[in-house]
């Protein structure tokens, strides 16, 4: 199945390329665009694994809703380049950088090593799932509403708390909560305007 291999290689390259470019872009909107590209590549990978449902949901939720929200915020603040983002964060010591990168690399290689044993492996080393129901609507729903019901419901509680938090941060202070305004000094108008100009 060379067609499968070609699709896999192309979409994997697209996903990795998008993710890499996302990091290296100085323009926030371009970053978001590359992230979308990466997500589309990932969705294709899911579809190729037979998990069309997961792929579609990935596109609907992430590219369709969340990244639109990202774009909305970026446009609201009108960030055209990284200079608009404000002061760069303080430099991290070199040791921490190396340590974290090594940790992530080790974790990833561990996961890949484990997963290679899980499914059947083709000659190119691509994991293909033997189980037909993998990632289908039924299997996802069954798992979600039986085995992982409690984590699933806990997630919704987490989201609820996030919503409540957002509402509290975003709401305007009511009048009696505002600190009392100091009485404005009464004086000649000319004096006031002079103050303003200075």
């Amino acid at each position: 199945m060379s067609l499968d291999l070609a699709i896999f290689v192309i979409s994997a390259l697209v996903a990795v390329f998008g993710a890499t470019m996302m990091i290296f872009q100085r323009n926030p909107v371009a970053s978001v665009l590359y992230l979308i590209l990466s997500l589309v590549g990932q969705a294709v990978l899911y579809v190729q694994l037979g998990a069309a449902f997961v792929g579609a949901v990935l596109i609907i939720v992430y590219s369709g809703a969340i990244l639109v929200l990202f774009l909305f915020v970026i446009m609201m603040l009108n960030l055209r380049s990284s200079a608009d983002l404000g002061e760069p964060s303080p430099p991290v010591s070199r040791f921490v950088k190396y340590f974290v990168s090594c940790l992530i690399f080790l974790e990833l290689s561990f996961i890949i090593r484990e997963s290679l044993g899980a499914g059947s492996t083709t000659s190119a080393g691509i994991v293909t799932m033997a189980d037909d129901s993998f990632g289908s609507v039924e299997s996802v729903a069954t798992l979600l509403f039986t085995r992982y019901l409690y984590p699933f419901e806990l997630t919704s509680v987490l989201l609820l708390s996030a919503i409540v938090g957002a509402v509290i941060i975003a709401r305007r202070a009511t009048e009696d909560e505002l600190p009392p305004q100091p009485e404005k000094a009464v004086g000649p108008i000319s004096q006031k305007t002079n103050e303003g100009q200075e």
Partner: protein
Amino acid sequence: MLEMIIISSVKVIVVVVAVLTCCAWSTWLERKVVAYMQHRMGPTLAGPFGLLQPIADALKLIFKEDLVPKSVEKVTFALAPIISFVPAILTFAVVPFAADFEFFGYQVTGIISDLNIGVLFVFAVTSLGIYGIVLAGWSSGSKYSLMGALRATAQMISYEVGYGLSIIGVILVANTLSMKELVEMQGSDSIWFFQNWFVFKQPLGFLLFLTCAVAETNRCPFDMAEAESELVAGYHTEYSSMRFSMFFISEYANMLAVSAVGATLFFGGWQGPLLPSVLWLLLKMFLFMFFYIWLRGTLPRFRYDQLMNFGWKVLFPLALLNTMITAAFVMID
């Protein structure tokens, strides 16, 4: 294998050409219908009843200067029309356009790709269409365009939820996500050929779908992204020539796509007596299109905050309610 590829390619070409043709003449239909609603005549000069007007328009747009203002982000500016155009066409990949038929001895299915998650595919693809508008508005480097894009994103976030939930009812009743199976379920041999249409089982769901679909395609009365009386032309203010016409076509292609999806989900797709199945789908799509235009001729534009309120406080709860009621009925069955 080769045979399958050839048949699929032919189907793709036929469908795309048909959609583009329909797009062109939808512009004519819109101009004529709105004109008659306003006691005008619409285009009359090009051909009989102005029927050649779309061709004249296309020629005009092709020969216009392709103006790129100085302040634009060039790459995204060029990409935006394509991004808004492609998803609209992609939707038709999973819309069953006819019953299975035999063509020169080959058995042909009346659908380009019978995905088992067809409905989800439609939603995934249409949710990408918004990027065309957003990027166009952002990359134009113009206030009007940016305002249009901002509005489009806010509108889209408010509506996507209700839009998705409005069809959950149909999916619950049908117990499938495949567009083909959905259509086949709605067929009926009796004289009441429309008795199995989902619009009768899901009236509220249909109304919600209709409303959200109008918002989804940025059409009047939810056309705030291009509100010509406030934002010049909204997100495509800085566009001209063929780039502009790409937006123009994609708007109509989106309308057609939503019409086709609506006809498939609620009105039995190509199901219908006597006439060939393709004609039935076209007829139903035409009714949807007419309703769109009728809406434009009737309702004024919503205000920005009204629309957000409407989306979150009316459509979303109603869609949830519809889902719950349908789920209860399905459980009792």
